[in-house]
């Protein structure tokens, strides 16, 4: 997966971090101190559609190659998350209870072309 850089507009992962102090949420969220809200952005030209390691599934890769070979211009490939991980949150609820939970698939680790 590519990390976004100035000199490429290919599908990549753009990192963005929200510090809970900046949004005034650090009084009720005990841990973590912020949220890594990465997202996927960029082009998926046909020649990279479904490239190994960049496809979300083998089936999609085969399907895109068929499309590419058929020369049809219809259909396109999207820049999507290909790997995510959970976010563990420890927070106070409105009754001042402490609650700990793991939210699945909350942080985008890698992006790829579908």
């Amino acid at each position: 997966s590519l990390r976004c850089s100035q000199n490429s507009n290919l599908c990549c992962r753009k990192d963005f971090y929200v510090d809970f102090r900046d949004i005034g949420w650090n009084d009720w969220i005990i841990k973590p101190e912020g949220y890594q809200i990465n997202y996927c952005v960029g082009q998926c030209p046909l020649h990279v559609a479904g490239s190994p390691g960049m496809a979300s599934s083998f089936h999609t890769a085969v399907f895109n190659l068929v499309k590419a070979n058929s020369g049809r211009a219809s259909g396109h490939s999207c820049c999507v998350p290909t790997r995510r991980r959970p976010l563990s949150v420890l927070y106070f609820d409105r009754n001042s209870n402490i609650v700990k939970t793991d939210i699945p698939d909350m942080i985008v680790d890698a992006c790829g072309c579908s």
Partner: protein
Amino acid sequence: AAAAEPRCPSCPAGPERWLLEEVAKKQLLEKLRLRDRPRLAHAVPRAAVTRALRRLQAGGARRSPGGTGDEEEEEQSYEIISFAETDLTSPPTLGLQFHFSQAQDQDLRILQARLWLYLRVPRSSLTLRIFLAAQSGAGAGGNLTLLGERRLSTTGSGWRSFPLLPALQGFFSGQSRSLRLELESRGDGSDVAAQLNASWSHQPFLVAKVKVREPGHRVAKR
């Protein structure tokens, strides 16, 4: 001033940053099943939080590796620490009031529930009984269900935990979100109720692990 600060070339600024912060807020509230960010009713002493988290951590360490959580990854689980509001309205028993905040329409399945008490036991002839009281509306004096009884054989001061399952399962599958327990001590004459009521720095708390039972079954999109 902005000119003086070294700009972060890859950091979005202005409207884009505001938009991403709003998206982050919305995502977190949605995943935590909260309509809005919680406004704390009262501050909890940081020392109490640290102590309770240490218990939670120790409790987690004791869990057998790959416990139930692994098999049922689909259901989101919560570990909740609820600090008790104590009252001595009906001595010699001590009332412990807990308030939970889950939404009414959530069907919770409770996996673990333990009550933590900081006790000073001078002699080894103290017996402690824990009762589940009727709905908090009734306050003290409602009918009581015995959850557990234990003879405290080791003397000294320290935290002790008391399992509350399976008797408490019924409470979490009901509609009420306010739980009242009553403690009664017999034995060596030391007044556990007064002891617990007085020590604000060692506030009793309840640790529960619950899973939210999803309505219907979930279909994974492919």
